[in-house]
């Protein structure tokens, strides 16, 4: 046998030979994958001890400059239960065979691969192309579809702003994209964009749950197929006409613009003390059903723009009387009468979500309302379909306007940066099994042999539907070690992510990422392979996943226990001697991440509405490691006259009178001017010719902020404040309260007093040490 293992240039041993932490980000840049453990324990028993699950944070469509793009279909393992794709780790026999890394099946090479050698390798066998994209020959039947579902129960300003944004967005769509338009208020109004002579729409009750059959019958109307007006071939040809509600934007832009212009506030009178009747639930039912009947299994986005809570069944969030309050977290926890609609509504929107998933359609929710709109109940629709949720105070805000348009960002070739109709398939070599996924995806319920019994997140399948997939969308995939027998050293296991999706250029593409990990019994190797950032994010995702199901306090205890157990396993300490506690460098920051996670709005729902929580969690569960980490532990940068800008501790001690602080929590970007700076600014020094440097100091954080703002979705809320400013609370809420009113002497040197009862990081760490060394769990 003259087998060549082209992938074996990857010398894991060499990588791990160094003492320093591995360069995880570099690996991420290559494959879009961050692993909590970059080596896996070799047996199931060992894996059970390492506390933090073996998982990967995978960004399938991660933008990659040097991405290999193959203009042909991939070579697939002929083992029907495997179907893995030929990759650099495969050993290839130039005489015409290749060995599947996953199932060890021997496959014949296609004829055209005959005669390959080191200098003439197909793209997918090139070691640098462990991630590769295939553009398949299968054509996409339909261009991307956009269905706008617009709430008209809004005040004029809000509606007008929304109309404006929508009108602008039309020009961002590819000309051949199909658009549909549904307005709803008390009723659902489906616009017949194909009606040229007159503005025509179909109305549905807002308080009725129509079946698929009903909607299809109501909207379908036989029409003469174009070109058969006279019926040359014996009578008119009838065509299914549901597609007339979704037409190319280039054809209907004028008409749709006119419709938007004429769109006015829902005219049904609202009694004093009542909410308007708003039938979000019914509108979504109609939208998903219509789209499902007309274009099943084709990439489509249903974009819901809602200005308030649904007040009509189905999908009722809150009754029509204003005296009936919207549910809060505590109502939901107590399951009291205020939250009485919650379960039913959630179930309803889950049903809608399932339908959209079945048809591979995305549901986006844009809420422009100071009050809650029912995102909490509706979140499943976006979470399951990979849609986006955007919570804003109003459609007049730039957060909405800019974020919305950012959704239509394009790549260098002018194609929308959004993929449709995707599936993610996770293939593993036999040592591993897939235990689940946490991210905006839905299970396809494919129980292939590599599906683990243990479920973490969405389990029980190795394939997921990603109705919508964008370059930044990241998915946490967890693995079980299935191997029970000791393995030879340097044994490798393989993971292959296969992502099928519809590219907005009108092609079906397959992104294949294959990674290999060593299986090790060596604890030190394992320790060194720990990526605490990825681990923190993965743990956070698991936590949030649990939080969606369990009581908040239980989840916090669970996180604590995980942290303690991890420290007990990997820290150096002598029993019952607190001072002896040392964490190895790869773990050093992990407790801190957990501390901030515990304090974050993701888990601390106090002061947040259920809608806000749903929104924050939604965004978190979608972002890559860096952004997620930023959300867990915001970054704080200091600007002062004396020093270069530098990152500083997220701590109350970082607040100084002569500093400008820039806080980035992902959702907020806040510039905080210290007391002195604020006074100078107020005095107008920056306008004086002699104080150029002060002026540039003031400008610097702003420039920095603008850079941060530039490519973020959703657009963060920008806050410019100063000491004593009311908005400064956003900063204080994030800072580690080293100095509170209880203990302001601890770090006597400067800093601000944070008025909180929360424990500080120091106290938290002290407790952790104590618990770890005492051996309790």
């Amino acid at each position, binding site marked *: 046998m003259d087998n060549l293992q082209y992938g074996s240039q990857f010398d894991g041993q060499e990588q791990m030979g160094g003492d320093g932490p591995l360069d995880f980000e570099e690996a991420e840049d290559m494959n879009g994958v961050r692993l909590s453990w970059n080596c896996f324990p070799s047996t199931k028993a060992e894996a059970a001890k390492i506390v933090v699950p073996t998982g990967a944070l995978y960004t399938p469509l991660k933008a990659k400059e040097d991405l290999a793009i193959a203009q042909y279909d991939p070579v697939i393992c002929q083992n029907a239960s495997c179907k893995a794709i030929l990759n650099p780790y495969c050993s290839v026999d130039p005489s015409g065979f290749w060995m599947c890394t996953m199932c060890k099946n021997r496959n014949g090479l296609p004829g055209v691969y005959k005669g390959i050698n080191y200098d003439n390798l197909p793209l997918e066998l090139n070691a640098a192309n462990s991630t590769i994209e295939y553009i398949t020959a299968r054509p996409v039947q339909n261009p991307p579809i956009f269905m706008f579902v617009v709430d008209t129960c809004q005040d004029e300003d809000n509606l007008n702003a929304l109309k404006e944004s929508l009108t602008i967005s039309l020009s961002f769509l590819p000309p051949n994209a199909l658009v549909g338009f549904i307005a709803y208020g008390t009723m659902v109004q489906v616009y017949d964009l194909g009606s040229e*002579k007159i503005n025509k729409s179909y109305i549905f*009750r807002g308080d009725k749950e129509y079946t698929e059959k009903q909607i299809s019958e*109501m*909207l379908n109307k036989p029409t*003469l197929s174009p070109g058969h007006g006279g019926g040359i071939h014996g009578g008119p040809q009838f065509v299914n006409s549901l597609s007339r509600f979704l037409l190319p934007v280039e054809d209907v832009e004028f008409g749709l613009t006119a419709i938007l212009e004429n769109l006015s506030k829902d005219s049904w009178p609202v009694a004093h003390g009542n909410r308007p009747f708003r039938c979000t639930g019914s509108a979504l039912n109609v939208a998903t059903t219509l789209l499902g009947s007309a274009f099943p299994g084709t990439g489509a986005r249903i974009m819901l723009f809602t200005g308030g809570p649904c007040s009509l069944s189905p999908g009722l969030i809150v009754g029509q009387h204003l005296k009936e309050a919207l549910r809060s977290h505590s109502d939901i926890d107590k399951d009291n009468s205020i939250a009485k609609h919650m379960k039913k509504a959630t179930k309803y929107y889950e049903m809608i979500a399932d339908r959209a998933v079945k048809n591979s359609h995305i549901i986006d929710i844009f809420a422009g309302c100071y009050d809650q709109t029912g995102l909490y109940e509706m979140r499943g629709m976006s979470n399951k379909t990979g849609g986006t949720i955007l919570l804003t105070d109003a459609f007049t805000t730039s957060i909405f306007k800019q974020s919305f348009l950012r959704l239509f960002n394009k790549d260098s070739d002018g194609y929308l940066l959004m993929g449709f109709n995707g599936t993610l398939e996770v293939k593993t070599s036999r040592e591993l099994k897939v235990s689940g996924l946490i991210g905006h995806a839905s299970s396809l319920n494919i129980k292939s042999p590599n599906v683990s019994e243990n479920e973490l997140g969405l389990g029980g399948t190795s394939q997921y539907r990603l109705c919508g997939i964008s370059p930044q969308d990241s998915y946490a995939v967890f693995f079980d070690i299935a191997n029970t027998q000791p393995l030879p050293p340097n044994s490798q296991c393989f993971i292959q992510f296969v992502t099928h999706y519809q590219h907005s250029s009108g092609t079906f593409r397959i992104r294949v990422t294959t990674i290999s990990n060593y299986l090790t019994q060596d604890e030190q190797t394992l320790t060194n392979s720990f990526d605490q950032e990825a681990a923190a994010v993965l743990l956070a995702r698991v936590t949030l996943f649990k939080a969606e199901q369990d009581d908040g306090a239980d989840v916090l205890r669970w996180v604590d226990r995980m942290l303690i157990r991890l420290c007990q396993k990997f820290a150096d300490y002598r029993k019952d001697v607190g001072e002896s506690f040392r964490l190895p460098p790869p773990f050093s920051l992990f407790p801190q991440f957990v501390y901030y996670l515990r304090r974050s709005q993701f888990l601390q729902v106090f002061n947040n509405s259920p809608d806000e929580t749903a929104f924050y969690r939604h965004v978190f569960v979608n972002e890559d490691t860096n952004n997620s980490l930023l959300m867990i532990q915001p970054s704080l940068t200091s600007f002062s006259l004396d020093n270069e800008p530098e990152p500083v501790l997220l701590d109350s001690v970082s607040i100084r009178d002569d500093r400008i602080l820039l806080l980035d929590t992902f959702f907020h970007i806040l510039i905080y001017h210290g007391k002195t700076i604020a006074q100078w600014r107020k005095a107008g020094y920056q306008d004086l010719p002699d104080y150029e440097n002060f002026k540039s100091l003031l400008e610097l954080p702003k420039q920095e902020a603008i850079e941060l703002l530039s490519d973020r979705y959703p657009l963060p809320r920008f806050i410019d404040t100063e000491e004593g400013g009311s908005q400064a609370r956003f900063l204080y809420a994030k800072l580690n309260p080293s100095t509170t009113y209880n203990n302001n002497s601890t770090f006597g040197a400067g800093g601000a007093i944070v008025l909180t009862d929360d424990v500080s990081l120091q106290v938290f760490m002290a407790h952790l040490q104590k618990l770890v060394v005492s051996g309790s769990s």
Partner: protein
Amino acid sequence: MQANNGSFTSNGNGTTQDLRAMNGEMGNMSLANKRKKKPARAFHQQWETAVAPPSSTASTPFMPPNALFNGNSNGYGFDSNPPSNGFITPRMDSTSSFQSPAPSRVSSFQTTQLPGLPLFPPQHQPENAIVVPVSGGISLVPAPAPSSELSLVDYRYHTQATFMTPTSDNDPLYPSFYTFQNSIPPTAGTQYLTVDQGTASPNYIRSSMYFVPETESLRAATKLPIALTIRPFAPSQDPVPVVDFRDLGNISGSDPLDFGPPRCRRCRAYVNPSMTFTSVSNFTCNVCQFRGNTVPQEYTSYLDAQGNRADKFVKPELHQGVYDILVPDEYNVGGTGSTNDELHHIFLVDISEPSIRQGLPAVVADSIRTALFAEKEDLQEQTGEDNEPSKKTIKYSIICFDKHIHFYNLSPKLQQTQVNVCTDLDDPFVPFFDGLFADKEESRIQIEDALTNMEQMTNDPTFLPDTESCFAVAIKLASMCLESHGGGKITTLLAGLPSWGPGGLKFKPNNTSGKNADAEKYLFLPNLDYYKALGKELVAQSVGVDLFVVAKTQVDMANVGYLCGVTGGNINRWTNFEIERDARGFHEKFVTSVKNPRGYQGQLKVRCSNGLQVAQYYGTYSNKDIIGDVMDPKVSLLTEDQTFTVLFEYDGKLDTKYDCHFQVALLYTDALGARKVRVINLVLAVAEKLQDVFNMVDEDTVMTTILRDSLSFMGKQSLKEIRESLNNKLVEVYTQYRAMSELGHNITNTMNRTLLFPEGLKHLPIYALAFLKSDALRNGNGITPDTRLAEMFNLMHMPVERLLYNLYPAMVELHSLDDEECTFDDYGFLRLPRFTELSLSKMEQGVYILCDGYRVYVWVDPNANILLVKDLFGENYDSVLQLDPMMNELPVLPTLISEQSHNLIKFFHSKIIGIPGQDTGSSIQLVRPGIDGSEIIFKLRLVEDNISRSLATPSYGDYLTSLHKAIRVNLDSDKASGKIKQSIDNVGNNSESLTQRFALF
């Protein structure tokens, strides 16, 4: 020709002398006789003066026919016809043959017999056919009475002439009908002036009896109903005064019963001219005789020596028979605190395939455009003066339907209209709020846009219409739209059997007709619960439906038409619509439907003197069947044409000391949203003698009542039974009358010999015969249930004159018109010629115009004088064959006959058909015997002829013969039982030998 004309003239002259004399006699006898009964009425001070004018003019009515022959007419007559034309001679012959018996009859039947018959003897009267019993035995004598005595055309002509002949040579004024002094009104359709004397003009209200029997047994002896036929919004020469009582009693803050218009505290009758003010602060109710009524403080007035209030002639409610009262909010539908909306009107248009194929949406669109924008109409004038100028205007909405329901959004905020399609038929709902109803001026652009869309739809070959329609749901939805506005009107087009969706109808084969009552029940009564419930909803929500059916197929009128029937809407039907020919007629009727609403949210209450009570309302269905046990009917929609017939029964005995008072109070909201009560008062005398009762009968109302009662049994009894009952009824009535005469019930009267007809019921047989031959009742499977029902529903509420002209159409012979005839006089009255009897044998080979209450037909015989044809249709026609059968109007030509024809058609349209003046001329349908298919329809209108031997539709003569036979048999057979005799002898004996049908009569 000369010979003919000459002989005619001389003969005419010869008879005219006799005629005049005899007419004078007749006038003195018959009219004066009638008026002698009047003193029984309580307050007839001016009685004597009233006798004079009519009697002095009574001889004149026969002048014009005379002039017709003397004045040598218009020269169209028989120019082209050979002298041996078969029509003249027989007429002359029969004249002579009838001349001899005439004088004897004059002496025999002094009171009622009219001499001078010989001039117009019945053409078809089989000689010696009518068996007239004479005292002492039975013998055959030549048929006497049913000749000109029974001639309806003469009667109509005569009555009209009475009111169009100046009172004297010096006084150019026409005699007026004085509502208090005169009693029996001129036959419906007559043009006359009225003077309101505190009791309403016959335009508004007609009674079947002007001498109300004192007791039930007296009434029962006549076998006639006591009924009123009310037309609350009849067109009148003077505007109806409006009295504002909205604030009366408001300040006193006392008893809420005193709030608003002054009313009797016991029977709640409204203040009226017959109420007796006994002191400054007290009045006695004329209806219930309650004495304890107090006058509201602000309403007091001093009484003069006669006990009349000083302000009697200032306040309309104290001296007029008809007036509107503006009422306070308590009278609103929702009570105090609710407001009344202006009328909301929905156009509901079928756009399914049958409609598009016939080009109808475009026709409707054009009609709507005309109705809304073509003419400047003054609403203020239409609804009477309003104290404060109201900003309100009628609101319109346009909705189309096929398998779905298409709403046009007419909001003035939109740049163009939008169509919203409602597809949920199981659970219909009002799709939007703003723009559903629009003011026609504010939203003119949007409305025009919608109409244009409908036209495009019609003309777009690529438009693929739905094959079926969901009419029932569309109506339901339209009524839901109207719900929040308190009701309104729906004018709807239906072009085929509405088979789609809930309430979808199935074709009903017409093979069961005439077999049994159950089979007919299925055909004639609504069988779908959806429609029954919908009818109930429409009535409850005050929604009226006008239906335009343009369909070649059946549309199941039993269900569809029911919706119109219960809401008092009109049904207009075209079964063979040709857009070229019929669009104009459609257009006219449609525009009328838009313009005729006078109010809505009506509630009718008829109060009457003690002793009588309301037994039944016809013309509105909102009784127990529809909305439960509400006796006073709700009337969804009020139009000028709407009439109600109210049947009374005795719950006691009328007090002969007083008159019999009726007060019709119609509470309604006018088209601009003002809440009003229209009060119509009628004062009648009370009779103690059977003869009086018989002599003061109004046959128009009697016929209307009998007809409506008969029709109300459609579907409940078989048509055969209904026809038999009708015949029996006639036999009974005349039997009673003859029995009365024979038995000498009234000893003072000398009429103890045979007499066929009471003066007032002479034409009942011809009307009854016409009714038997009408589309509603005629025997035969050839008539579809739709046709029968459309006729039935319309007959239930149409004005009396239309009803009577529908039964016995007016036919005018153009070729013998006099120059004066068919021209308008200073009063705007049309000088009508004598109509032609409706018999083919009376027609010559000329041109005729016939109006049957729905349409105007122009009959042009192929052999008609070509000069006449040229004068009527244009110089370019050389033959009748060249006329366009699709012609829908007569051209306007500078010839006299053209002008006369136009005048006549216009008169028919406005007075009979109920289509107010159209600027552009009026629609006609051309009928050319032997050429056009419409000949059949035309011939059906010739009710004096036997239509078909097999269908038991006898000629008038045959019918009379059998009627007489039946009467005789009746009387003969009574000799044993003596029941009839007994009922006459002893009016106190309530023996019932009536058929079940007329149990109430």
